[in-house]
């Protein structure tokens, strides 16, 4: 089992101070925003790797969600539904921006070879900027691994829900997640 040791430094942002609670046209939708905005913003932030773009994406996701409220039939949880919109939106942005060329080959076999030596426990001390290090690590992973790790980090999501969101079987999710963890650990170590 890999063990990470780090300082728990809070994320530094350049965002302006609180400007008061907004008055929502729809209090119900406001409640949805309050409950899920952190996870949606976090997924966008770490998936896109840019706070400003993540903020824009989160805005667009909630606006899309509001427009599609009439289509939401409650067949999935609200958060799963929001995640689906977020994933589609962020993938479209990445395709359009062509910003992720750090890892061009997403073949699983290459990553298996690259991380073959990372099964032993690791210990990393003194991480002053944990968020930045996590972002650097995620940026180097294939998009699919990055997404799986971010989704599985949300304990509200089951493997079946993650499988549905990523359009594959739960068994495939488990297998890829195993490789994604190894790849993350291998890359994370490099930024020690």
């Amino acid at each position, binding site marked *: *089992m*890999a*063990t*990470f*040791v*780090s*300082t*728990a*430094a*809070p*994320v530094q942002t350049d*965002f*302006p*101070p*609180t*400007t*008061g*609670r*907004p*008055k*929502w*046209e*729809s*209090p*119900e*939708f*406001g*409640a949805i*925003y*309050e409950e899920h*905005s*952190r*996870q949606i*913003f*976090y997924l966008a*932030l*770490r998936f896109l790797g840019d706070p400003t773009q993540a*903020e824009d994406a*989160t*805005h667009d996701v*909630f*606006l899309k969600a*509001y*427009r599609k*409220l*009439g289509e*939401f039939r*409650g067949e999935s949880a*609200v958060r799963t539904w929001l995640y689906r919109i977020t994933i589609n939106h962020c993938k479209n942005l990445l395709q359009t921006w062509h910003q992720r060329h750090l890892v061009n080959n997403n073949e699983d076999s290459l990553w298996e070879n690259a991380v073959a030596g990372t099964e032993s426990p690791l210990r990393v001390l003194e991480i002053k900027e*944990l*968020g930045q290090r*996590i972002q650097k690590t995620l940026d180097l992973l294939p998009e699919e691994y990055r997404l799986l*790790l*971010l989704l599985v*980090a*949300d304990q509200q999501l089951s493997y079946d829900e993650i499988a549905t969101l990523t359009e594959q079987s739960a068994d495939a999710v488990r297998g890829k997640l195993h490789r*994604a*963890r190894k790849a*993350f650990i291998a890359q*994370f170590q490099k930024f020690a």
Partner: protein
Amino acid sequence: MNPKSSKLQQQQKQETTEATASQQMAREFASPEEMLRHDAGQTEVPPALARRVAESVAQEPRHARSWWQRWFSRRSPDS
């Protein structure tokens, strides 16, 4: 008091203090997802974003209330 003994005690006290501080600062993660979970907890949504979303929603045309909106309305007496 033996000055050497006093100096040793002072050094030991300082080492203990430093070790304690280090332990308080350090955090262990058993897996990448546990680390990401912690990172998510430390990440604040930009405060201005809620107002921005609310303003954009206010400009949208009103649409028929879906089942969940009606459900929420029933649960919330002040809405």
